[in-house]
Each structure stands twice: as structure tokens, then as C-alpha cells.
């Protein structure tokens, strides 16, 4: 039983580690072609948006699109604060505060 669990954890650790390690191992020692660097430069904005947009606008099980809800409404002032300050700490703290307040009101 615990042996099984240990094997599962080991297997999960391995299949999680390899995708994290392989690109670093392969790509950090060679000159990358210019087009690839340009494409990679767009990846962070793409990934962050792909992570946060569903997080804010999709809810429930089964998932459905909910445009106006607590987390998406709070996102608007948080976005403005982020644009204005570019400060991670300030955005996180004010986001938490606003979300907490919104929870009290809504």
C-alpha cells in the first residue's frame, strides 16, 4: 500500500521533472535561431493569459463561461493597479483585500 504510493510519487516526480529539465538541458548551450527566440518571446504572455483568463471567467463543474462573477469583477481594479504600479507586492495585497471586501458585499 505505502509501497504503491511511493512508486506513484516517484513516477509522478519523474514525469514532472523531465519536461522541466529537457528544454533547459537542450537549449541553454546552443545558439538559438532568431525566429525561435522571437517566438519564445511571445510564449510568456501567451501562457500567462492562457492560465489567468479561464481562471477568472470559467466556473463550475462542468465548466461554463461566467463573465461577471466575484473573481472577474475584482480583476478589473486589480488590472488597473497592476498597470499603474507594475508592483507585484502591491497588486497581490490589494487584490486580496478587494476580493475579501467583494466577498463581504456580494
Amino acid at each position, binding site marked *: 500500500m*505505502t509501497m504503491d*504510493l*511511493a512508486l*506513484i*510519487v516517484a*513516477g*509522478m*516526480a519523474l*514525469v*514532472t*521533472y523531465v*519536461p*522541466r*529539465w*529537457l*528544454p*533547459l*538541458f*537542450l*537549449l*541553454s*548551450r546552443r545558439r538559438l535561431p532568431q525566429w525561435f*527566440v*522571437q*517566438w*519564445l*518571446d*511571445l*510564449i*510568456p*504572455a*501567451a*501562457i*500567462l*493569459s*492562457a*492560465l*489567468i*483568463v*479561464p481562471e*477568472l471567467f*470559467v466556473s463550475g463543474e462542468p*465548466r461554463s*463561461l461566467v463573465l461577471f462573477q466575484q473573481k472577474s469583477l475584482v*480583476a478589473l481594479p*486589480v*488590472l488597473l493597479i*497592476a498597470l499603474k504600479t*507594475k*508592483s507585484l*507586492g502591491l*497588486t*497581490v495585497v490589494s*487584490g*486580496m483585500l*478587494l*476580493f*475579501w*471586501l467583494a*466577498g463581504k458585499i456580494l
Partner: protein
Amino acid sequence: MENCGGSRTAFRDGVKAAWPICLGYVPIGLAFGILAQKAGMHPMAAGAMSLFVYAGSAQFIAVSLLCTGAAATSIILTTLVVNLRHLLMSSSLAVHLQGVGRGFLSLFAYGVTDETFAVNLARFTAGRWHPRQAVVVNLVSGAVWTGSSIAGALGGEFIPAGAFGIDYALSAMFICLLVIQLRAPIHVVTAVISGAAAAVLCLEIPGNSHVIYASLFGATAGFALLKLKKHGRGGGKEKEP
């Protein structure tokens, strides 16, 4: 780099950069610990999973699969699929880790998560970030993740859910990190395409593979637009010091 002073300042800088991540990891780690404990896992087993796997969503899925008595192979395969998105993140980070030793890279790779990736990349892009500081972000966040998982498994049910809006910490962090990445119009276009694609895809595909598909689609579409308009204000010319 300016911090030839050594590992002490690197550690301090890393912790400073990591605190928003840690703030977000605490409630999720606690929740994971509670769930793991309810699934019959020993607190140390929950801690071991957080320490060795260090991938939030995959761990939640694994624990719920464990509850349903799923086979080990299907749990491991699901983990692989859920975590394939890190391929893209490590590829992006590789641009900033040119010529770094392979032993160091192997340690660094361990701690590449959605959150550490985003924080480190923002710092690397801003230009004043050293791999040593970045690896501190990875490891400190991992320690907090593991610690809060164990704490959750030991007695997480005593903590009120949703206290102080802490559940929103990571969402707010990602919003700010996305804003930091929007350095040129092409980044905005890419983010809009990718975000819309992710929202639509996640309704259709279970799990979180929509993140990979939408990111690949968004970045490729943005790249194509950049090439179509040669004067597209070259968002991609990246020259690091």
C-alpha cells in the same frame, strides 16, 4: 552581475521576489494537505509528494484519482500530460540561462512551476536577475509549498477557508505578471488570442491541456502577425546584458 557579493544577497533577493508566490502557495498547500489527509495519506506522504513532485494541479488530480482507486500508471500518465506545459516554460527560461552549468540547470529545473517561471521571467526580462537569485525563488517557493502541505495534512481543517482573500493571491499575481509581459503591442495581441482560445478550449477539453494548446496557438498567431507586418515594432528583439 552586480551581486558578485555571494550567495547571501542572492538569497535575500530571491526571498524578496518569492514572497508573493509563497503567499499564494500557503492556502493551496494547506488545501492539498487537507485533501491528501482525507484521502488517507500520511502527512509525511503528502509532504513527500509536494517535495518530490512540486506541481500543484497534478497533485490535486493525483489525490482525487487515488480516492477513486485509479491505477498507478494512469495517475502517472495524467501527471505527465498535466505538466507538459512546463516544456514551454523551461524553453522560455533557457533563453536567459545560456551557458549556465548543467548541474545548476538540473537543480533549477526541479523548481520550474507556473508561478516561479512567471516571476523569474519577469525579472530576467527586466535585465537585472541572476540564475542564482532565480534558483532561490524556485527552492524557497518549493519549501513553502511542502511545508504548507504538511501543515494542511496535520491540522488544516482548523483554518477558516477564504480568510483575508488569500485565495485570490495567485490570481492577482498572474494579472500583474501578465501586465509586466505586455511590453509591446504584439504581446497584447498574443495575450488576447491565447486567453480567448484558452477560455473556449477549457470548456471543451477536461483537465488543463488547454493551457498548452492555447499558448502554442497564441504565440504562433502572434509570431505570424509579426512576420506579416515587418514593421510590427519588433517585440521579439531580446538582447540581455
